């Protein structure tokens, strides 16, 4: 097992947001995490990244607990994160943004950059440009590229589809599948995407900070309650 979360509870100040959440991602798997606005998907990913401290429960990656680490140490353990809203460094060039994902001493820097550029040729064409001048889709690609520059074994993706046209979202999902074929495990948080369920093998559904159901993505897609609540399809 790659990532395993057991009975996690997370709070912001006095407001408890996650309740007894358990979830796992096997090595090489694509898992999606589906839930409405405010369900707690981002909070879960931030807890894994140690951006938020959690009170109870455990998060274990490749057999080692992530408790008490700083975010950059979680990155060093092999987990990379693409946040909601991309969060690029706006006054830096695309190439500098990517450089920041790699460690200081990085012998294979050029080959890491090349693999990002071959995944996203559109990014290669804009590498000298300031990140703030990119389109939303290009920014998303750079954010994924920056995460891949850390050479992760697991990738956490928060709301990839946000602000993207269906066509660009497809392009981005292709890149994610390609990355997965290279052996990177994926946890994909999405609000209501049928596409997310289609690319993942298993999925968890989150409601009000709890996991309300889990199972094979194919079965969830066919579940009429899930179709209605999360995919916006009324049979």
């Amino acid at each position: 097992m790659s990532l395993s979360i057991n009975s996690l509870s997370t709070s912001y100040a006095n407001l408890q947001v996650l309740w007894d959440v358990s979830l796992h991602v096997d090595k090489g798997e694509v898992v999606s995490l589906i839930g409405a606005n405010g369900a707690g998907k981002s909070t879960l990913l931030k807890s894994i990244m140690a951006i938020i401290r959690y009170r109870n429960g455990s998060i274990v990656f490749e057999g080692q607990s992530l408790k008490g680490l700083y975010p950059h140490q979680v990155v060093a353990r092999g987990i990379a994160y693409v946040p909601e809203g991309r969060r690029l460094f706006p006054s830096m060039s695309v190439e500098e943004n990517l450089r920041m994902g790699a460690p200081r001493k990085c012998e294979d820097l050029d080959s890491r950059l090349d693999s990002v550029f071959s995944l996203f040729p559109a990014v290669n064409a804009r590498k000298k440009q300031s990140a703030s001048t990119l389109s939303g889709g290009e920014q998303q690609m750079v954010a994924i590229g920056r995460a891949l520059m850390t050479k992760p074994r697991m990738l956490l993706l928060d709301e990839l589809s946000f602000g993207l046209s269906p066509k660009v979202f497809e392009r981005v999902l292709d890149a994610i599948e390609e990355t997965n074929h290279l052996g990177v495990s994926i946890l994909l948080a999405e609000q209501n995407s049928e596409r997310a369920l289609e690319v993942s093998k298993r999925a968890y559904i989150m409601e009000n900070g709890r996991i309300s159901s889990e199972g094979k993505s194919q079965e969830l897609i066919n579940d009429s309650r899930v179709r209605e609540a999360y995919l916006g399809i009324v049979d």
Partner: protein
Amino acid sequence: MDTSLVNFAQAIISGILLGGFFALASVGLSLIFGVQRILNVAHGAFIVLAAFVTIQFSLVATPSLHLNPLASLGLDFMLIGGLGVCVYFLLIRRIENSGFEAPLLATFGLSVFLEYIIQSGLGPIPSIDPSHGQGAQAEHQIYSSTSLIVGPLFVQEPELISFLIAIIIIPILHLFLSRTYYGKAIRATAQDWLAAEFSGIDIRKTRLLSFALGSALAGVAGGMFAFTNSVTPLLGDTYLLPIILVVIILGGVGSMIGTLIGGFVVGLLLSFSELFDSSYLFRFGFQPDVGYLITFLVFLIVLMVRPNGLFGKGVVK
């Protein structure tokens, strides 16, 4: 050459040299403010403390060890840089994520504390160069600044040195920030510290590095300050800090080259304002020295037109 032309040329030379010193005094704060959004108002006190170190060093080391007083600049760099490290761990680190006000108040308290120590603990400060008047007796003369005279124009040696240090250090700092890993990591931390952190950057390191480096540069500036001024304990707040703030805001917070240019602008404003006959202002109760008045007037006008300064975008670019 006729006198007004000579005065004009002299004002340009003095203004540029003085501007170099102001840029040197400001660049450390510009770095800290740009990276951490921390307005370290103790920066002026750091400079005065370094000036005091240089004076003491000169009193002790020059006569007995036959060291050039300028050797103290290295000491200033290390001591004030070390002070920056201590202040960072004891004070800044605990409050740096809690908004703008807490660090402002904390460094204000630090400034008062340091000034009290300088004033009451360290006693009256002699002057390195007795030509500055107060303080040292003739036997304390450890450094007398030579003036380089070119025709009708003259240049004070220490002013030239601090100018040269500024125009060497500031472009190096610019290259450090734009070319090296740590420099880029400092800029990334400035632009979005959380994104820096989940990109794998140890932001505790980058913040410590920028605070220590910014403080160490205040140390170098303070060392040079001792050679050109008679130092009094409160000079950091009454004279240096206001000018430094004008320089970094004019130049654009976080832009090193902007700070250099901001320094020149303020230096030239101050030296040219000495050319005006300001005696009539006397009648209205103004000090005859209108340099400050003109500098701050220009500052306010620039801010009305360009709120982010002449070159600035707000954070380290």
